[in-house]
C-alpha cells in the first residue's frame, strides 16, 4: 500500500469514506457522544487528507486522473464509456480543496455549537452525507452521477436547514429549498435525458466530443444552466438563498456556502467542458459581425451578474438580521464570480479574457472562505447572546475579543480591502472587466464600496458602542468554535499575503481547465479527438 496506490484510488475514497462514515455514525453514536464527534472529525480529516494528496498530485504534475468504477479501461473497444467515470482535472481538485476546508471547519465548529441539541447522531450523519454529495458532484465525470449527488446534497441540506424544527421559519426555508432544488434537479435530469437520447452516452467527455449543438442541445443547455444557476443563487432566482442561509444553524450554512459554489462549478463544467467546442463557432452573420455563442452567453451572464451584484448589495444594506444580511452579501459575491465568467466568455481567447477567468476562479475560493467566516462569526454571536437581530446587539467587542478579530478579518476580506484575499481576486476582475466595458468595472467597484459600508454598519451596531446591560455576562465562545474560525482566517490571510503563489499553483490550472477542454476529452477518448 504505497503512496501511488492511495493516490490512484483517492477519487473513489474521497466519496466513499464520508459515505461509510455516515452509515457508521448512527451505530457509533449509540456508544458515546464524544466518541461519535471524534469519529466524525477523523472521517472528515481523512477525507481532507486524501483531497490534499490528490490535489498535490494533480497540481504538481498537471495530469488528469481518471478512475473507472468496476475496473477496466475508460473507453471500451467500440469507443464509448459504459462505466461510471471519475475524472479529476485542475478545476475539480480546486473545488475539492474548497469543499474539504469548509467541511473540516464545519465539523470542528459543530462540536460546541450544536452541543445543546437533540438528534445529533442524525445531524452528523447528514453533515457527512452532504459532504459526500458535494465531493461526488465535484469529482464525477458522468452526467447522471452528477444528478444523483446533486439530489443527495439537496436532500440532506434541506433537512439540515430545517434542523431547528421549533422555529416555523426554519421549516419554511427548508421547504422552499427542497421545492427549488427538486424542480431544478428534475429539469437537469430532463436535460440529461435529452442528451442521452441524441448521443446514447452519459459520460461528460464523450458527450463533449460528440456534441453537435442541435436544437435539442440548445434546450438541454438552457435547462442545465437555468437549473444549476438557480441552485447557485443567481438573481432573480436567489430568493431561497437568504431564507435558507439566514435560518439554518451557522455550521450548516457554512457547508451550504460550499454547496452553492459547487452548483456554480456545475454551471462552469456544463458550459465550458460539455459545450466547450461549440462556444466560438459563429451562429449567424448579421452584416459584418458574426454572432457567436460565447458572445451571447457572455453578455447574458454579465447582465445577470450586474443585477445579482446590485440586488445583493442593496438588499444587504437594508437588512437588520445578521445572517440574512450576510446571505444577501453572499449573493452579491456570487455576482462577482459570474461577472468574471461572463467577461471571460465575451473575451474568450484574449489575454484579459484569461485574466478574467483566473479572477473568477480565485474569487470562488475567496468568497467561500470569507462568507463562511462571517457566518461562523454570526453563529458565535448567536451562541453567546441568543440574538440574531442587529438592533438588539451592541458593544460585544468588549466581551468577545477573538470573535471581533475574526469578524474584522472577514469584513476586510469580503469587502475586498487590501491586504486580504478578496482584494487580489477583485483586482483581477476589475482589470479584466474594465477592458470589456469600463462602466461594468465602475459599477463593480462601487458595489464593492457599498459592501464595505454594509459591513461597517454591522461592525458598528454589533461590536462597537457601549456595553449593553443585558450582555454583561457574555463570554467568548468555546475553543472548538474559535479553532474553526481560526482555520478559515488562517487560509484567508495566507491567500491574501501570497496571491501570486496561489494564482500560479492553484488557480491557473483550474482556469486552464475551463478555457481548454481538449485535455479533458482526450484523457478519456484517447487520440480520437478530431
Amino acid at each position, binding site marked *: 500500500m504505497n503512496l501511488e496506490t492511495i493516490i490512484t484510488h483517492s477519487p473513489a475514497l474521497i466519496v466513499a469514506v464520508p459515505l461509510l462514515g455516515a452509515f457508521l455514525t448512527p451505530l457509533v453514536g449509540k456508544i458515546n457522544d464524544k466518541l461519535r464527534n471524534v469519529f466524525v472529525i477523523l472521517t472528515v480529516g481523512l477525507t481532507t487528507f486524501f483531497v490534499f494528496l490528490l490535489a498535490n498530485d494533480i497540481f504538481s504534475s498537471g495530469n488528469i486522473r481518471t478512475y473507472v468504477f468496476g475496473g477496466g479501461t475508460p473507453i471500451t473497444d467500440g469507443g464509448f464509456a459504459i462505466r461510471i467515470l471519475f475524472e479529476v482535472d485542475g478545476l475539480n481538485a480546486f473545488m475539492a480543496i474548497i469543499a474539504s476546508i469548509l467541511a473540516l471547519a464545519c465539523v470542528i465548529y459543530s462540536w460546541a455549537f450544536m452541543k445543546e441539541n437533540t438528534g445529533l447522531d442524525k445531524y452528523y450523519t447528514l453533515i457527512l452525507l452532504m459532504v459526500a454529495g458535494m465531493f461526488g458532484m465535484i469529482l464525477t465525470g458522468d452526467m447522471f452521477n452528477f444528478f444523483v449527488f446533486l439530489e*443527495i446534497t439537496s436532500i440532506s441540506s434541506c433537512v439540515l436547514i430545517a434542523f431547528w424544527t421549533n422555529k416555523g421559519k426554519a421549516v419554511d426555508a427548508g421547504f422552499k429549498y427542497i421545492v427549488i432544488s427538486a424542480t431544478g434537479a428534475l429539469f437537469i435530469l430532463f436535460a440529461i435525458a435529452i442528451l442521452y437520447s441524441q448521443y*446514447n452516452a452519459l459520460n461528460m467527455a464523450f458527450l463533449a466530443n460528440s456534441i453537435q449543438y442541435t436544437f435539442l442541445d440548445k434546450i438541454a443547455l438552457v435547462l442545465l444552466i437555468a437549473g444549476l444557476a438557480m441552485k447557485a443563487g443567481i438573481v432573480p432566482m436567489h430568493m431561497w438563498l437568504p431564507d435558507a442561509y439566514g435560518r439554518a444553524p451557522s455550521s450548516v450554512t457554512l457547508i451550504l456556502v460550499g454547496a452553492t459554489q459547487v452548483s456554480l462549478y456545475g454551471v462552469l463544467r456544463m458550459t465550458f467542458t460539455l459545450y466547450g467546442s461549440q462556444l466560438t463557432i459563429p451562429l449567424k452573420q448579421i452584416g459584418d459581425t458574426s454572432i457567436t455563442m460565447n458572445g451571447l452567453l457572455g453578455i447574458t451572464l454579465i447582465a445577470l451578474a450586474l443585477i445579482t451584484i446590485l440586488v445583493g448589495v442593496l438588499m444587504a444594506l437594508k437588512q437588520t438580521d445578521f445572517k440574512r444580511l450576510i446571505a444577501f452579501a453572499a449573493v452579491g459575491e456570487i455576482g462577482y464570480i459570474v461577472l468574471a465568467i461572463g467577461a471571460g466568455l465575451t473575451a474568450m481567447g484574449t489575454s484579459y479574457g484569461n485574466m478574467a477567468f483566473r479572477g473568477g476562479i480565485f474569487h470562488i475560493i475567496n468568497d467561500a472562505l470569507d462568507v463562511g467566516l462571517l457566518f461562523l462569526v454570526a453563529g458565535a454571536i448567536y451562541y453567546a447572546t441568543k440574538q440574531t437581530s442587529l438592533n438588539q446587539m451592541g458593544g460585544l467587542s468588549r466581551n468577545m475579543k477573538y470573535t471581533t478579530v475574526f469578524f474584522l478579518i472577514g469584513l476586510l476580506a469580503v469587502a475586498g480591502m487590501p491586504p486580504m484575499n478578496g482584494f487580489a481576486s477583485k483586482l483581477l476582475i476589475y482589470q479584466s472587466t474594465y477592458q470589456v466595458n469600463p462602466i461594468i468595472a465602475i459599477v463593480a467597484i462601487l458595489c464593492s464600496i457599498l459592501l464595505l459600508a454594509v459591513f461597517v454598519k454591522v461592525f458598528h451596531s454589533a461590536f462597537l458602542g457601549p456595553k449593553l446591560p443585558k450582555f454583561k455576562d457574555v463570554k467568548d465562545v468555546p475553543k472548538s468554535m474559535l479553532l474553526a474560525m481560526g482555520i478559515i482566517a488562517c487560509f484567508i490571510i495566507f491567500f491574501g499575503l501570497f496571491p501570486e503563489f496561489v494564482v500560479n499553483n492553484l488557480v491557473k490550472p483550474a482556469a486552464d481547465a475551463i478555457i481548454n477542454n481538449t485535455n479533458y476529452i482526450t484523457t478519456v477518448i484517447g487520440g480520437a479527438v478530431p
Partner: protein
Amino acid sequence: MPARNVAAVIFFTIVAVFFVFGALMTHPFGDPGNPEMDQYIIDNTQGETGADNGVTSVVFDYRGFDTLGEATVLFTAFAGVIVLFRRLKK
C-alpha cells in the same frame, strides 16, 4: 389578472412551445437509432457479469456507483424524517 399571472402565462407559453418543438424533434418513437452503449451491455451482460437480467447488471455492476448514491438518498430521507420528527428537549 394580476401582473404576476400575465408574466407567468407568457413565459409558460414560451417554455411550452420550445418543449413541444423539442418533443417533435426527438428521434422517432420506438427507433433509437444505433445505440452502441446499450447494445454493448445487452450483448455482454451474460458474459461479463453473469446476470441474465440486463437491468440488474446495469444497476449493480456497470453503474453501481449510481445505485450507491440512490441507496444513500433513501438513507438520507429516513434520517431526515427522523430528524424532523424528533423530540427537541432532552
